[in-house]
């Protein structure tokens, strides 16, 4: 009889599940302490279906090959002075936002999956989570390497890990992941594995990667493709965890529904940063935020939730609000950042006439009606040499930590404002979604490290705001921050390309 090659399934079983042993002298509940406290009931781990069958030996082989290809392109990009070939220097601010706001999340994901990869009683789930944690570590490394090249030529990249832990707007993505990692292992999986990696991942990655492709940034496109080739495993793991939880016990259904409501709302709030990046920071536009929200959220999620309905899962509670907000959030977020650019580690600017017209075309129901006049006013001020910077510190939402700049969807000129009182203290929220999340677990969210509160309490240096920005945030004042027009980034770019500074152009135009 000829020796048969092991099937993929058998090979995977032997190299993963077969490594499990019987716990003979320790109690199961003692070994897997976190499995029960969230109210999730697991009756039979053997029903876990492996979402992918990649064994460690094949994993190293594949990943090594991917790295070879990726680093060859990084080298070529550097040797070609790729930084000079992007559409214009404004584009690089999207990459600053990615490095300071998103790449550290990959590191958080690595931590999170490594942690839950220890907590599950089922060996299949443990192996899958550990594998994903390795991927996430690879992603953060390749992203840092890709962007280190820009650090040599542009400002604002130098202290990204330090800034991620301290700077006000970076507390939005950071606190999102902190929230997930400090939850129980099953909530983490629904938050990150399912809601983020399956439902929302395309809304995060596709805009950045196609934005890079449309703006001549080959290095970023390439790490994007390299990371996406790992996302398959992450997406299938996200789906398996949700099916597994819903099938294990009917009592899990309401718990999972609450987590889906919470994490899809938390996720769409974080993606506000991507929304403004797409609509305002890309010199060559790919598609509008509204369009990508329709394709990657509304269409994809409606198919998914139609299937999940068979388990008794409903559309996430705040999806309707999120759908209405697609017309507004990018403009509102860009307004906030334009106001506070003196406190940011990247540059902002007002769109030019052509860009304003593009926004009018893409947002026929909202841009001209609610936003154009304000932006034109700010542009006039800038032309008059009085570029507007907001001198106050904004109030932040206790849950998502975004400044309270979102408006009511039935009256888009009225700031949305919600409050809760907990143990005699008043807390503020930007939305029903954020308020409900707080109200369910106030003891967790009262501990939020809100950057503005921390500044006022004197925990971020001072006494002046410049001390906070310079010493505590480590922003190079007058270099990393302020409007793009007049920035050293702009001056360098113009010198490379023998261009006239924008200021002079403005003067000539007026």
């Amino acid at each position: 009889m000829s020796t048969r090659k092991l099937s993929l399934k058998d090979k995977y079983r032997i190299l993963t599940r077969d490594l499990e042993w019987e716990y003979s002298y320790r109690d199961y509940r003692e070994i897997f302490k976190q499995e029960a406290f969230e109210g999730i009931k697991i009756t039979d781990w053997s029903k876990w279906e492996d979402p992918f069958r990649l064994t460690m030996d094949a994993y190293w082989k594949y990943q090594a090959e991917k790295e070879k290809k990726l680093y060859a392109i990084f080298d070529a990009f550097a040797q070609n002075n790729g930084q000079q070939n992007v559409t214009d220097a404004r584009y690089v601010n999207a990459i600053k936002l990615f490095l300071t706001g998103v790449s550290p999340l990959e590191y958080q994901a690595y931590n999170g999956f490594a942690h839950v990869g220890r907590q599950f009683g089922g060996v299949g789930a443990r192996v899958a989570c550990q594998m994903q944690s390795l991927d996430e570590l690879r992603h953060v490394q390749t992203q840092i390497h890709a962007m280190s090249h820009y650090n040599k030529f542009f400002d604002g990249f130098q202290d990204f890990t330090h800034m991620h832990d301290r700077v006000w707007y970076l507390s939005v993505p950071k606190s999102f992941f902190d929230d997930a990692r400090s939850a129980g292992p099953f909530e983490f999986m629904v938050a990150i594995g399912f809601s983020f990696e399956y439902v929302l991942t395309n809304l995060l990655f596709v805009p950045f990667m196609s934005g890079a492709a449309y703006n001549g940034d080959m290095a970023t496109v390439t790490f994007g493709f390299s990371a996406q080739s790992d996302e398959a495993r992450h997406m299938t793991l996200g789906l398996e965890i949700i099916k597994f939880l819903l099938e294990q016990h009917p009592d899990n259904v309401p718990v999972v529904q609450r987590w889906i409501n919470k994490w899809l709302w938390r996720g769409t709030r974080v993606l506000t940063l991507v929304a403004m990046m797409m609509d305002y920071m890309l010199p060559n536009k790919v598609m509008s935020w509204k369009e990508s929200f329709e394709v990657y959220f509304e269409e994809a999620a409606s198919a998914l939730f139609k299937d999940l309905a068979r388990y008794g899962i409903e559309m996430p509670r705040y999806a309707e609000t999120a759908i209405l907000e697609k017309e507004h959030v990018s403009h509102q977020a860009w307004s906030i950042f334009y106001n506070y650019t003196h406190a940011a580690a990247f540059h902002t600017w007002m769109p030019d006439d052509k860009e304003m017209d593009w926004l009018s075309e893409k947002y026929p129901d909202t841009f001209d009606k609610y936003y154009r006049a304000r932006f034109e006013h700010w542009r006039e001020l800038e032309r008059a040499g009085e570029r507007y910077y907001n001198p106050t510190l904004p109030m932040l939402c206790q849950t998502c930590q975004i400044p309270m700049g979102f408006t009511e969807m039935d009256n888009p000129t009225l700031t949305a404002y919600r409050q809760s009182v907990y143990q005699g203290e008043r807390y503020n929220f930007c939305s029903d979604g954020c308020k409900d999340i707080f109200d369910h677990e106030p003891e967790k969210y009262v501990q939020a490290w809100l950057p503005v509160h921390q500044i006022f309490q004197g925990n971020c240096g001072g006494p002046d705001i410049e001390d906070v920005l310079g010493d505590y945030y480590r922003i190079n004042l007058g270099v990393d921050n302020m409007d793009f027009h007049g920035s050293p980034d702009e001056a360098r770019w113009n010198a490379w390309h023998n261009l006239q500074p924008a200021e002079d152009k403005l003067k000539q135009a007026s």
Partner: protein
Amino acid sequence: MTYQVTVEPTGDLVEVEEGQTILDACLRQGVWLPFACGHGTCGTCKVQVLEGDADVGDASPFALMDMERDEGKLLACCARPECDLVIEADIDVDPDFLGYPIEDFQATVASIEDLSPTIKGIRFELDHPIQFQAGQYINLHLPGVDGARAFSIANKPSENGIVELHVRRVPEGAGTGYIHEQLREGDTLPMSGPYGQFFVRKSAPEDLIFIAGGSGLSSPQSMVLDLLEQGDVRKITLLQGARNLSELYNRELFEQLAEEHQNFSYVPALDAPLEEDHWQGFSGYVHEAAISHFGGQFAGHKAYLCGPPPMIDAAITALMQGRLFERDIYMERFLTAADGAEGTVKSALFKKI
């Protein structure tokens, strides 16, 4: 121009149109392959080519690396065949699948019977015996009709010299129109089979539920007859849905079987009984009859569904709400040439549903 793609290790056959991707053709024809992103960047749908050539399409160089291209790997979501293909996918062969070889037959019409006002029962005598698993189907080639038409076999496998089909007249359907109006006793037609992955998982210990709608009774009839003939002792429940009494065919056969076999129950359901039917049985859709019969609790069973897509859809929802999930549900959707054209976005949550 279409190409035939054979998917190993199950041996499923898929027709791929010129310009169509392998994944699209597979999913539309009920052959599940693992997939996620659907546009060549994730690599979930990677398959190995065993025979033939295909255009790899827009596969990302990271999702399908050079060394894999050299080994003949493809991403099914963006690959298009350039000739007939044999591919190997990361799917499992069911241990209960017997894998009888597909053969060609000359099938002669022995009898044509009106089972109901819209359904005819056709018995063919074959030129040589057929081996098949109860639940599988054959392809029938009809004169003047393009392409083969698929019909489930209604007789039990031990009757291997004949093939019995139940054919509902599809309005304006060319194939079923020919059978209802032009086919005569004594006609001989080319037939091939058996095909399909719809069969009883006999190695599974669970009790069985069969839910049939319209001419979708054919497969469950074959399966039930086969199980009872072999003396299977598990509880077997057949739920049969029809519009009214005249459409409820073969009722006497199953009522008699229910009398003879303690472990077999028969539950007919009419969703639009006529007054003259004097219907005493369950009124409502067949999935509602199932909920009523089992008290809404289906855990611990294997369920087999056969019928038109809306019936299957409603039955899956009923079963899942009663805590029976994908791994325990098997189905054969009766699609007509008009079905399957809608290009709705599909989530990757379920494999077979």
